[in-house]
């Protein structure tokens, strides 16, 4: 499948030497990279099937440098692609040939830890895990835990509104950030929110989170930290039917229990994971649930029993309950290694990310199986079952002509099915370039225009991360125009009093 990116601005490319020199004047020394060899690591992000060398890479180390770089690009009409650690799975940080790639890798400092206000003020290049590590000695942690947490940056987490295994109970990034410093494309530096629970004015932090680098460049973030639960235990429950596992998930939630995490794997995923990490997963089941309860021991013990009873009532064929931290971690080891485990049984795989209503899980799985037969490609399924977030892994071989296109078409059909079942195109990986052209499956032109008007409020020239999220980017002047609703503007047919 070809994803068309915006046409390169030849005039900008023609001025490349002057642009590099101007950027060097702002960010001295090794902070500007322009040799093809050195730019190689920046050619793609976690969506590795797509590569594109940027025009130049800039690695500023202060808000002032970011501001001056953006102001320069704004004045010169140069596109900018922001990048954190480059772990995006949707191509959000894919460079453009005529764009400056703005890396935040040098923003690596945690600026303040405030236990009393339960907040950490951090630079965007700090990894997700490093925040939890920095506050662990006081029993705190930062709740959202995307699988890539040892590598992914908190700035990228905000840009993508990252989730993770525990967001069923503790929320996604958007529910755990309090404020930020953001630099607009004009170079203007704006502070939003802070250590208060809510900020004045519109909830701009709420729309910046998950905006995929299209609204501004974040240079500081204030996140909320939580005390670690006293204890956590997990159940590993096997089912002979996927439907029974789906029913079990629904009944647990229906009983008013919100587990810390509730994950499902299907047979191919179970077998791949077990062969890789030997977690002791049952191999004679069609679906496996890993359900984690956390809180005080007295609560966890009781809820474990309640969940076990529910599982039995749904016809579970096996149930193991962790009796130690080591055993709990072992249960998780297979799930957390599911992607690399699948990587061992297939030369390539494509990881999808749709969300459906929990109740539609059996239907979605059936549809995925049908599509698997239709396309002749294998698929292994891992889900954040508690919140209906599917991660089907489509197995293919990029060396076989046409197979990658086939895998992508299969993936697109899965996402269409998610929308048909009342769900959405992406639960946590973002739209990026990967799902950009599927946006009309979920939003009509009016919906998308309204989203782009928000973009215009931040970036009227459309210079920040173009080619991502929106299938077509309209000019702001055009979007701002009031329609003439000819014939409809007559006196409306309404009761008046």
């Amino acid at each position, binding site marked *: 499948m070809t994803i068309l990116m915006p046409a390169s601005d030849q005039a900008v490319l023609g001025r490349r030497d002057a642009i590099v020199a101007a950027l060097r004047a702002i960010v001295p020394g090794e902070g500007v990279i322009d040799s093809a060899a050195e730019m190689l690591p920046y050619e793609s992000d976690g969506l590795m099937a797509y590569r594109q060398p940027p025009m130049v890479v800039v690695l500023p180390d202060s808000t002032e440098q970011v501001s001056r770089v953006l102001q320069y690009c704004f004045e010169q009409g140069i596109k900018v692609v922001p990048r954190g650690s480059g772990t995006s799975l949707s191509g959000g940080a894919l460079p453009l040939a005529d764009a400056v790639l703005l890396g935040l890798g040098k923003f690596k400092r945690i600026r303040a830890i405030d236990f*009393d*206000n339960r907040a950490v003020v951090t630079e965007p290049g700090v990894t997700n895990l490093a925040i939890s590590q920095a506050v662990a000695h006081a029993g705190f942690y930062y709740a959202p835990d995307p699988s890539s947490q040892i590598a992914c940056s908190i700035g990228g987490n905000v840009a993508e509104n990252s989730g993770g295994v525990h967001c069923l109970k503790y929320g996604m990034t958007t529910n755990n950030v309090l404020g930020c410093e953001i630099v607009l494309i004009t170079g203007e530096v704006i502070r939003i929110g802070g250590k208060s629970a809510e900020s004045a004015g519109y909830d701009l932090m709420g729309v910046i989170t998950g905006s995929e680098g299209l609204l501004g460049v974040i240079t500081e973030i204030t996140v909320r930290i939580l005390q670690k639960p*006293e204890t956590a235990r997990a159940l590993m429950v096997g089912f002979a039917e996927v439907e029974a596992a789906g029913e079990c998930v629904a009944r647990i939630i229906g009983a008013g229990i919100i587990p810390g995490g509730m994950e499902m794997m299907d047979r191919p995923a179970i077998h791949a994971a077990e062969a890789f990490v030997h977690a002791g997963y049952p191999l004679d089941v069609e679906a496996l649930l890993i359900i984690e309860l956390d809180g005080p021991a007295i609560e966890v013990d009781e809820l474990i029993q309640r969940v076990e009873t529910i599982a039995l009532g749904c016809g579970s064929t096996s149930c193991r309950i962790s009796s130690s931290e080591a055993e709990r971690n072992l249960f998780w080891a297979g799930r957390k290694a599911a992607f690399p485990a699948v990587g061992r049984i297939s030369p390539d795989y494509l990881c999808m990310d749709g*969300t459906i209503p929990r109740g539609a899980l059996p239907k979605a799985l059936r549809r995925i199986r049908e599509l698997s037969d239709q396309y002749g490609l294998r698929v292994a399924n891992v889900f954040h079952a508690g919140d209906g977030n599917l991660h089907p892994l489509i197995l293919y071989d990029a060396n076989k002509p046409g197979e990658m296109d086939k895998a992508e078409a299969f993936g697109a059909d899965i996402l269409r099915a998610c929308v048909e079942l009342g769900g959405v195109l992406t639960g946590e990986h973002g739209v990026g370039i990967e799902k950009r052209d599927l946006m009309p499956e979920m939003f009509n032109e009016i919906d998308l225009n309204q989203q782009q008007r928000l*973009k215009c409020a931040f970036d009227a020239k459309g210079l920040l991360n173009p080619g991502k999220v929106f299938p077509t980017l309209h000019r702001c002047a055009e979007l701002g125009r009031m329609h003439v609703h000819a014939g409809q*503007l007559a006196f*409306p047919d309404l009761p008046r009093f």
Partner: protein
Amino acid sequence: MDILKVRDAKDVEQAVRAAIEGEQPVEIIGHGSKRRIGQPMATNALLDLQALNAVASYEPSELIITVQAGAPLADVISLIDAKNQHFAFEPVDTAALLGMPNIGTVGGMIGAGLAGPRRIQAGGARDHLLGAHAVSGFGDSFKAGGRVVKNVTGYDLCKLLAGSWGTLAVMTEVTLKVMPKPECVRTLVLRGLDDVSANRAMTMALGSPFDVSGAAHLPHSAFRGDVGGLAELGSGREPVTLLRLEGIAASASHRAAALGERLLPFGLGEILGDAASDAIWRAIKDVQPFAADGPLGAWPVWRIICPPAGGGALGEALARATGGDVIYDWGGGLIWAAVPPRPDAQAALLRPQVDQAGGHAMLFRATEEVRSAIDVFHPQPAGLAGLNERVRHGFDPKRILNRGRLARSSPA
């Protein structure tokens, strides 16, 4: 004044388009329960959403409900209560505080975005709005978000709609997250603490692993009148610090006891059960000590949000400077302040101190005259104000919707 009673989303589109054409800004109302909040509006027609009152779908096992914006909130709360579910952010009922007859509609709840004590644990209205259908100031129906919790498809416009006081779009239908109600509630009560010590106790509680879902402090002045919901606290008229623990019975009791032990340096606490807890936390949520029919009914009331650990010092200073009363919620992060009346509701005295504490102050209750005279919403730095204005312009360029509600003296 024209009252446009709309029957469906198409009617709303028509009404807004007509308003654009006629350059007649409209005020969006449901039950009108919050009409007295905000800057007096420069509108000359009412867009009445009361007839949009249907529950489109309620799926308890999916933890979501989809309702039209004009649905009475009280009815919707009863509906989900029957399935033992609730809106975890505890929408504030402003009726007593403002002297209005009822809690209003679902649309009003989201547009105002007022969360109660559980804000510290479960998030605010913005965290529970999953999707919306709305009509923008362009006269176009658009949808935002979806019907599932985990969704990062496109910009999260729902966040903007929550708490926008009807100035961006007319919501016609919303999908909200509901949560199972806790089986059991315990309240740990500490007595006799001054505001700063109470703030420290609440900070320690919120920094504990006991999952505190409410942390409030009532200075002795809060007992000036007879607030029914506070009767369970006795008539000692001494300050009380309240910490709420919810969950299954064994867990809530265990945590209440363990927290009491940890807070022993602040004195020996007592533990209250479900019925008393419900009444007390409702009184705090709805700011009953400052009720319109109470002894401070004629005083202006401020809603101040600040970094929680500094709340005690700020509130104490504000009470001293203004001669007013304060009560604390959100572990000190939310201060309700009733101040003796002045033409500016003591804004000149109050706001600089709030600024210095890193917070913001909204004049929540005051006469129309006072609300015309000062900035009801906290003034913002120029850059941020400009960005807010550009965002508003992207939704409603002609300022048709609730014109003037958020900002004084803004150009038409």
